[in-house]
Every structure is written in structure tokens, then in C-alpha cells.
């Protein structure tokens, strides 16, 4: 059975650590993700949030005056862990640029996202953009009935 954790943080630098900690704790619950892969996921989540925060910082503030937020939907399934990060506007363009990135950091970011999760997909949503990150669990550790949690 899939279990969903949702997290919404203000799109500000100081909250990226909260997202990393929550995702890291969640990723450790079920078997099938080694410490090293959880560390990798923490980096990619950090990259995604940072990309969105930097992009939003260069955009005019929203009309309603409320600070923009990042919404993380973590789908803790028996075979995969998905982290979907939704942000207003075209928040992930520096992670998925249309042309060759200019700044070093953007190149670094793109390399890390590509290398450290099994899948990263960008979607357009009614409210903005959603970056969907997927890790496949180690098959040997995944239970046959698809539910390896007690209770």
C-alpha cells in the first residue's frame, strides 16, 4: 500500500533543510533503500528546492502577497519512493534548462539530479511545475505481498 506524506515549506533558503530531514526520515522507514541512496535523495531534494527558491526569488511576488510555498508529496510505496515537488511558475527551469546552462552551479545541479535518482521528470501543473523524483527500492528487500510494514 502507498503511504503519502505531504510537506509544505515557504520558498526560502532556511527551509530546505526541513525538506531534507523529512524526506530522509521517510526514506528510512521501509527496507530497500541503503543509507547511501537516501543521502543521494537528500541531495536531489535539496537541488530541486534550491532551484525553485532561486527562480522564485527573481520573479515578482504573487498578487495575493502571500509568500510562495513549495509543496512536497512523498509517496512511500512498496517498490518505489517518489518525491513530487510542486512550485509556482516555471520554478525548475534551472534544473531542466531549455538550452545549455551558463552558470557552473546549474551544470552541477543538472549532473547531480541525473546521477543520483533513478528518474526525474518535470511536469506542468495548473499551479506551476512539478518535479517528480523516483527511487526504485532494492528488489531483494521488497516484500512479495507489496506491504512490508507491520500493522
Amino acid at each position, binding site marked *: 500500500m502507498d503511504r503519502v506524506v505531504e510537506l509544505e515549506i515557504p520558498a526560502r533558503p532556511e527551509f530546505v*533543510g526541513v525538506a531534507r530531514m523529512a524526506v530522509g526520515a521517510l526514506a528510512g522507514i521501509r527496507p530497500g533503500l541503503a543509507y547511501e541512496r537516501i543521502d543521494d535523495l537528500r541531495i536531489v531534494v535539496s537541488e530541486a528546492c534550491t532551484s525553485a527558491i532561486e527562480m522564485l526569488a527573481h520573479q515578482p511576488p504573487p498578487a495575493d502577497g502571500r509568500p510562495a510555498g513549495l509543496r512536497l508529496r512523498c509517496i512511500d510505496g512498496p517498490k518505489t519512493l517518489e518525491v513530487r515537488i510542486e512550485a509556482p511558475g516555471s520554478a525548475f527551469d534551472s534544473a531542466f534548462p531549455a538550452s545549455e546552462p551558463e552558470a557552473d552551479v546549474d551544470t552541477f545541479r543538472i549532473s547531480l539530479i541525473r546521477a543520483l535518482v533513478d528518474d526525474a521528470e518535470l511536469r506542468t501543473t495548473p499551479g506551476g511545475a512539478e518535479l517528480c523524483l523516483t527511487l526504485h527500492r532494492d528488489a531483494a528487500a521488497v516484500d512479495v505481498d507489496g506491504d512490508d510494514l507491520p500493522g
Partner: protein
Amino acid sequence: MDLGLDVTERDGYTVLAVRGEVDVYTAPRFRERLIELVSEGKHRIVIDLEGVDFLDSTGLGVLVGGLKRVRSHDGDLALVCTQRRILKVLEITGLTKVFTIHESVDAAVGDGQG
């Protein structure tokens, strides 16, 4: 979130030991400290990453920025790193070819670099 930045002088090198998490929130302090050091005339810098718990592209940008900065003064900036997870990030981004990476501060300052 803690970021520790300790500066010591060792055999003609300035050693900046970084502790904690380097991300978009803490990187500005790290960048400023480096800029300060360079503007104080410290152009042979060793950055000790052994105490770093987390480093993403923002932190890598600070390292590269520092390297460019000291090189523009004919200096050098080397790293100390043995942590596998940090080395992995440096490898994926091609930075193991850009930086000299030492196994200890001793090795970094005894090595005749810069």
C-alpha cells in the same frame, strides 16, 4: 542549522575547516568567509571538508568560486576530503579533475602545492 567555519594558519597555508551542512541557506556565509580571506591576501588556501555533513551544488559553486578567485591572484585552493559521499558529489560534477584533493590537512600543507 549550524555551519562551522574555522580558520587556522599552517606552514604558509590558510586552512578553512568547514563543519555542518552547506546548502542554499548556509553557503552565503561560507562564500563570504572565503572572499574575506582572499581579500586579506590569503591566496594559498586549503578547505578541509572532513566535518561537512551535507554538500550540494550550492556548496560546489562556492568552492569553484574560491578557486577562481585565488587563481586570479596566482594562488591555489586545495581540498581535504576522504568522505565517500562528498567525493561522490565531486566526481559526478567533474570537480575531482578541477581540485587537488588531499587525504588530510597534513598532506595538503606538506605537499608543495600552490
